[in-house]
Each structure stands twice: as structure tokens, then as C-alpha cells.
């Protein structure tokens, strides 16, 4: 049995406003799918506040909708729901690819995109595709009488392993993903020996708009090679708008290798992670560029 710490109360509000009200009162632990929180509470990595706030009953936090040229994905959207959504599969395919390589069906059914983002693991598998897609995080809080929301680019939202810019009284309500332009192609790769049930040793996402033998609006992002998922700007610069041949791809892969600073842990050494970054950038970039 984990130590329940200061946990005193449980609430499962149905309305966003009510949840925000409870959050404003302070010292709450938010639970969505629980797939991070439960193991973390067992290992002592997470300690409960005085209130366990279950946000799963809040309908406003669900749903995937196209609002103008932005796809709004509710924070409670499960990984399974991402996989099942035609909108995600067709227009945000790199996110569907990551969802397909995520844990197991049982975990995908419970795990939410909001939990994945707020847990802010450097290896969080939806984060790399969301960065490639220029996603933003929508946060809500109770201010005065009303609800106040703000939106931050995902890259800025993530500040370190398990750390974000979310303020204690804020709830993440959605991720907002601008619809990629026509011709946008993107691929996700996750390193592991299993199809999905693996913590990424490294992950990477590369996207861009294909124009002949060139890629424009290029995004290269990596997971598990830094305290947060990162964009590889040097590699992007070497790719953006240039004619891509084997030498150009090699140069970009080498640049990516040089700009990541991974750590060594029980899963892999820093050296190996850097090698993977180079080799798989080469492979995935060729795939994105030439199909």
C-alpha cells in the first residue's frame, strides 16, 4: 500500500467550473486516466495533496473537433480515441502513428493526452508529434467570477522532467493543433524492441511540406534525449528548403547527432542514444522526403 500522504477528500465534478473552483481552493492532485499517477504514488514519486480531483466526469474536457483551421483535442481524450479518430488519422497522422506505438490497449484505453502532456516525461510519446505539429496547450483557471483560459506553445509549456508551466490552480483543458498545410508529410519513430509497450529509448518525429525534392516548414523533434522533448534546430536549418540528396540527409543526421545531449540510464547509454539519433534521422528523413 502506498502512503496516502495528506489525502483527505475525493471529488469527481461534472462541470469544469466546479473543478476549477476546487482547484482554486488549493492542494489538489488531479487524476485523469491514472496510468502515471497510480504507479508514481506506489513508488513514492508522487504524493497526494489533500484532495484527489478526478476530472474524468467533465464532459467539456472530451472530444476531438475541428474549429476553423485548428483541431481541438480535449485533455481527456484517450490514446485509443486518438487512434480511432478519422480526423487524427487523416490530418494529424504522425499523432496517430505515435498513438499506435503507445503502451498496450488496456493502457491506451485509460491514458489521456492531457495526462501525457502534464506528466511531461521526456519520453512522452504524444509530445514529439505534437511539437512537430506546432501544438499549443490550453489551460483554464477560475479567476474572479469567470473562467480564464490561456494558450501556450507546447514547447514552452514543458520546462523539465515532470515540470510544466501549469499553475497549481490551472487545469489543462485541451491541446490545439493547427491543421498542417497541404502536402505536409510526417513520420514518427520510437526505439524499442516491442511494437508499443516500451518506454522510448529515443523517439523522433520529422515533418515538412514536400515540394519536389525539397522539404519546407521542416520540423525535427526528439524525445528522451534531453530534459524535455526538443526541436533540433540545427538539423532543421540544414534541411529547410534544400534539395535533399544522400549527402544532405547525412549532414542533417550528423547535425542532429551533435545537437542532442542525452543521458545514460538503465535503458541505454548516452553514446548509443546519440548514435540512434543520427541513424534514425537518416532513415526517417529519407522516408519523409522520398516516401
Amino acid at each position, binding site marked *: 500500500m502506498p502512503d496516502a500522504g495528506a489525502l483527505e477528500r475525493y471529488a469527481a465534478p461534472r462541470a469544469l467550473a466546479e473543478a476549477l473552483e476546487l482547484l482554486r481552493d488549493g492542494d489538489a492532485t488531479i487524476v485523469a486516466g491514472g496510468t502515471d499517477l497510480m504507479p508514481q504514488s506506489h513508488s513514492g514519486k508522487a504524493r497526494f495533496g489533500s484532495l484527489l480531483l478526478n476530472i474524468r466526469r467533465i464532459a467539456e474536457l472530451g472530444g476531438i473537433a475541428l474549429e476553423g483551421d485548428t483541431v481541438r483535442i480535449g485533455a481527456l481524450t484517450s490514446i485509443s480515441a486518438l487512434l480511432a479518430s478519422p480526423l487524427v488519422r487523416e490530418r494529424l497522422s504522425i499523432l496517430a502513428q505515435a498513438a499506435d506505438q503507445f503502451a498496450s490497449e488496456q493502457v491506451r484505453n485509460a491514458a489521456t493526452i492531457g495526462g501525457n502532456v502534464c506528466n511531461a516525461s521526456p519520453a512522452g510519446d504524444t509530445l514529439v508529434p505534437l511539437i512537430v505539429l506546432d501544438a499549443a496547450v490550453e489551460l483554464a483557471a477560475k479567476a474572479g467570477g469567470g473562467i480564464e483560459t490561456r494558450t501556450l506553445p507546447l514547447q514552452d509549456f514543458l520546462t523539465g522532467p515532470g515540470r510544466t508551466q501549469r499553475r497549481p490552480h490551472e487545469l489543462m483543458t485541451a491541446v490545439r493543433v493547427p491543421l498542417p498545410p497541404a502536402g505536409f508529410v510526417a513520420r514518427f519513430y520510437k526505439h524499442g524492441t516491442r511494437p508499443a509497450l516500451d518506454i522510448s529509448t529515443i523517439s523522433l518525429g520529422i515533418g515538412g511540406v514536400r515540394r519536389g525534392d525539397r522539404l519546407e516548414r521542416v520540423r525535427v523533434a526528439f524525445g528522451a534525449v534531453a530534459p524535455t522533448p526538443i526541436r533540433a534546430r540545427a538539423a532543421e536549418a540544414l534541411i529547410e528548403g534544400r534539395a535533399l540528396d544522400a549527402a544532405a540527409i547525412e549532414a542533417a543526421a550528423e547535425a542532429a547527432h551533435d545537437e542532442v545531449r542525452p543521458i545514460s540510464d*538503465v535503458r541505454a547509454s548516452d553514446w548509443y542514444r546519440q548514435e540512434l539519433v543520427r541513424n534514425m534521422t537518416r532513415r526517417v528523413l529519407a522516408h519523409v522526403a522520398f516516401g
Partner: protein
Amino acid sequence: MTVIERATLIGKRVPKMDAPEKASGKTRYIHDIDVSGQLWGKILRSARVHARIRRIDTSRAKALPGVHVVLTAADVPDQRPIGVNKDHPALKGDKVRCVRDEIAAVAADTEAIAQAALALIEVEYEDLPVIADPEAALAPGAPVINEKHADNVAMRFDYAHGDVAQGEAESDVVVEDSFKLHYVTHCCMGVSGVIAEFDASGNLLLHSNTQVPFLHKREFAEILGIDPGRIRIVQPPIGGGFGSKLDIYPFEIIAVYLARAARRPVKLVYTREEEFLASPTRQPVILRLRSGCRKDGSLTFRSVETLHDNGAYTSWGATTPFVMMQTFSSLYRVPHCKYHTTVAYTNNPYAGSFRGYGNLQATFAVESHMDKLAEAVGMDPLAFRLRNAQDPGEVTGQGMTFKSCGFKDCLRSAAERSGFLARHAEYRAAQGAGGRVKRGIGIASMLHVGGGACGTILKLDDFAHVTLMTGASEIGQGSETVLAQLVCEELGLPLSAVTVVNNDTDITPWDVGVHASRTTFIAGNSAIGAARKAKAKILAAAAKKTGVPEGELDLVGGFVVRAASGEAIVELAKLLRGLHFSDKAELVMTTHYYEPPSVHQDKGFKGDVSAAYAWATQVVEVEVDLDTGIVKMTKVTGAHDVGRVINRLGIEGQIEGGVVMGQGYALTENLVIEDGRVKNPSFRDYKLVTAPEIPEMDLAFIETMDGEGPQGAKGVGEAPAICIAAATANAICNATGVRIYELPFTPEKVYRALKGVAPKVAWRTRAAA
């Protein structure tokens, strides 16, 4: 005339008798059993790897409401050490030698309270230098881990046959390499657990998943200083064994101590993390092998040195060198062999017995060298192996007599069905070609022994229902079903007529336990013996009743019939009822004790240790990704000399399970231990193979009909895991031209080897000869 058709169950696909119960979630494992009045036990383990305990203060834990008992070594002055070397006290008093060491235990009303109490126990340590590898343990002046073994040697011996110097002189080619084998652990899906309770007279009832209940009964009696007759062990269905339940472990004794002190039943169940930290492992080994052959491909000698990491205490892991010896001396024809082994104490987790028992390690080295030697003399791997494989009737240098031996058939069958030769040549030729994913194929064989003895009691009731009481526990492997099949075959009854009782020492006959692939062979012979006696008794009675001579009668389909025509004479149930209710009431109840005709080894370890020897050849196909080092196992073709197939469904399942366990050993499983600490005690980072990763499997059975086996069968339980790692090493080499000497073939290790930056397996000092 009613003719009863003879139907045999032997060789059929017979579903396991307990499958419906298990598939509906009704089976009650140890975790699912609660006894009234029970308390929960929890163990406090050392926070240090090697340290003196300066002080333990349990007063705050004792004061916690709901806590009944808190024990430390000081509270059980009558402790006796356990284990193969009797070097292991259940509760450690003055010193901890390993991070899993038990230093205190709590019995409380609930698991949560027991857990909370552990946190209140204060321990003061004084750190001692940590010995984290066996070479350091043997260095002169190394700190002593176990006071009774000042040289840190748990075991050391030499074996030889022939004269390796002569063998080496006759060799045209000699190769020498060091190999390194890693830690893996059983990962039974059901974690360890036990319930201990004493009755009012002080008799102990233990609900335990031990695979050796009768040996444990004796041990517990010694530990408690009571008569063994006062101990009863009941074995609930087990959530996986694989050798892990062959030894007695501190948690079981601690549960007994807690129950004794609390005068209440105590249930103690591990968490998964505890299971990783505190269960035994497969024994890690550093191994140096030198082997030679002539130009014609005949092996000349093998010279082996091994250094084993025993961990801090001695369990069965320390005896794996004996099983390894059999492979070194007798897998292929080896005219001259020398083998030196040292088992050293360290502050690491200790090694126990694990399916295959040393043979995975030995076979990995031997079969790697078979490929290297073949290559050196320009023979293909198959021809080279066939050149050296034994034939039936051969006696090895160690004195094993291969009465039945399907070795060459295994080699030929596996090679043929996998298209080994053509593929091997094709992949080899493609090594230098383009492409980032390379394919490879590798072959390896194994030899394994079985042993032990077993008793059976058989009883028929007046509805011709059979109760088979056997000492052989069911550990998920399906022995229950196989034994029932064998008895049905003798008595001409359907499987539904048999109940197997195998889980209560107050009922079942003495037995040495489930290990060494012995259940089918030994317990099978014992069951057949009892059934034959019952049959003789029945036929004698039938003869008396019907006037037909015994010799002309048989039992078929629930009837006594005329053997020649199958004509039904009397229903068996009716005959039995007649017997029971006659004036001189007679019950059909028989016993049989079977001990195989193996010869005990002499001082030089020579002798025919097993009544039958099992053989297998496996061909493994892989894809190696040069960019990541990921090795994908795509296909395994196996040919197994199993003597005879009794239950095809069961034996396939055993082999498939073993193949995948071997796959895990070769590719993914790795218990990472640094400075005595387990770094990955969870399934998140200790990677078992999952359903999408399994290879295609093509299995063939070579039925050599072993004369001594029940219906001709031999043991098979351990065989399938044994050669997978070896064949995988050979396949990776075939794919890439790179040979790897260290397991497991995890992506990073393979990638480093491919890049030529893998550290060479180094053995700094030669183990003292």
C-alpha cells in the same frame, strides 16, 4: 456380442484437466486464499549491500495499533541456517551481505499496517566494502563475505577425462574465447507467497508453492526442532515454477516464525518488486573455452574454466556447474576434456535453480565454438556437427550411456525443415551487400539429463473412478494430465474417470519433487507401475468370477473384455462393486515406487547419471538492423528427441514456452545489477517477450521410444530453452560476420559489437587451477 473398441490417448492432443477451472478464474492460487484469523506478514530488507548492523530498534513499530509481532534475529535464537551450504540464516542479525537481506519482520492485522510498521523500524548500519564481482572476491585479501568461507569460495572442483594435452597436440585448429553470461530471473506470473499456521497442538500447516514438499517438510522440522510428522504441506495451484520453488527461502521460514510468535496464521505475499529483488536468479558465469579439431572435422579436446557469481548465499545455483559439466564432456564426441570451476561469494543477489540449470550457459559457449571450428576447417556447420554427434549405444568420456539417442535425427530434421544449408550460404554471401537489415540463420543442439524417484498410490472406487495420488506436483506443466493419460491407457478408462491428487503431504506418497525434467519420466513410470498392479488385481478377480483365464482378459473402455476379440465380459464398475461388497471385501488400491536405473557418479563425476538423455536441435533465424542493433527472431525450427509424445498438446506447449523463454534469455531479459543493487526490478525495464515478438515456430518430434521411459517417453521440460541463445549467436554471426560472446543480445550490445566498440569479454585473472 458387444465389442469394445480400443482407443488410445497416447500421442493425442489432450486438453489439460485443470484448464476450464483456470480459464474461468476459479482456480485459487496462494494469493487468493485467506484463512480465518490470518495476519499479514511483511519483511524489512536491508537498505545496504554489505554492512554490519549496529542497532535495530523495533519499539515504534511494535507500538503501532494493529501490529501483533515484530521479529528480528535476536528474537529467534534457535535459527538454523538454510541452503545448499547451510550458510543462510532467514533473519540476519549482525551483518547484511546483500541488498535483499531480511533483517526484521512484522505480522499485523492488515497488509497496510504491516507495511506502515516496517517504516517505523530503525536500523543503524556500518558499511563494509562491497564485492560486486567474483574476480574481486577471489583476489587475495578480499573482504570476507561469509565467515565460514574465508576464501570467498562457495564451491570449486575439477573434472577430466582423457588427456587434453594430447588432444591439443592432435589438433589442426584450436580456438579459445571467453564468454559472459548474465543475470535473468524466473518472473513467474504469480508472485511468491506462503501461509503458515499452527494448530492447538503445535502442528504446522503450510500452504506453500514449493516444488519439493517432502524435502521441505524435513527441513522445516529441523528448523523448528519438531518431528517431521507434525508438518503438513499443502500446495495450492502454482502461478509458474521454472525451478524457482526448488529451494527453501527465508520468507517461508519467517512466516513460520511469525505464526509461531503471534499464535495466529500468517500470510506473506511478495510484491512484484520484492519478487525481483529477493528471488533467486539464473547463475551468471564467466567462462573460458578452448577447443580443437582435426582437419577432417573431428573434435579433439575441450578445456573449460568457469567462474560463477554465487551471490551472498548458496542455493542450487552453486550446483549448476555439475550440469554444465555434462554438456562440456558429452555434447558431441569429445575425446579429451578438462574442466575447472570456481563458485565465488559476492554481495550480489544469489543464484538458484532455473529451468535448464546451467545448460543454457554451457551450450552457448560450446555451440559458438562448434561454428567457429567448422568455419576454420572449411566445413558447413551441419556437416561438422554430424561428424561429431553421437550414435545410440555410445558411451561418453563421462560415462553416460546413450541407450536411445536421436541426436543425428534431430540435427538432420531441424536443418532440413528450415532449409538451413541453403539459407546459411545465401545469408553469408549477402553479408557484404547493401541494405540496413541483414538476415541470418544459426543452429545449435543440446543434451540434457533427468533424474529422481517417485511414488504413486492408486485407488479405484466402486464406480470405477480412479484417484491417482502422486508425489509429483503440478507446476503448470501439465503433468497431471500426462499421468492421468498413462493410467487410463493401462486401465482402459476415459480421462474423465481420473482425479489426480498431488498437493498434500498428508496424502501423497514421498517424492523428491518436480525438477530436472523428470515428471513425465519418473512419475510416469511410477503411475504406470501402480496402474499395472491394479490391473493385475482386477483381472485376477475377473478371472475368478468369470472363469476366463487372466491371460486372456484385458481392460478396455470401462469393461473387462476378451483380449483377442474385444468382447465385453463385465463392466468394470460392476466388478469392483462386487469386490467391495463380497464377504471378503477387497479394495483395489495399489502403490508403486519408481527409481530409475541410473548409476551414481563416482568421485571423478563419472557414471551413467540419467536413465535417459534428451536431445534437441534448434535452428534460429534472425533479422539484424544495422542502424539500431535490434535483433528480431523470425523463426525457430526445433527437432526434439522426446522418446515418445504422450500428450502432443502439452509437449508442444512446453516447448513453445521454453523457446520463448530462451528468446528472452537471448534477446531481452537482463537483470541489471550494479554494485550489488538491482537497477530494474520491474517489468517496465526487465523485458519479458510479449505476444507480438514471438517467432514463427516449427516443431518436430523425434520418437526414439526410450526403453526405460513410460510408453517410451523422456523428459522434455527444460530442453527447449537451452540452445536458443547459442543458435541466435550463430545466426547473428551468419547475418553480420560479427560474433558476440556476451549475453543478452540487447540492441545496444549488438550495435556496439557491429561497430567494433564492444568491450572484449575480459577475464583478468586465471582462476586458480
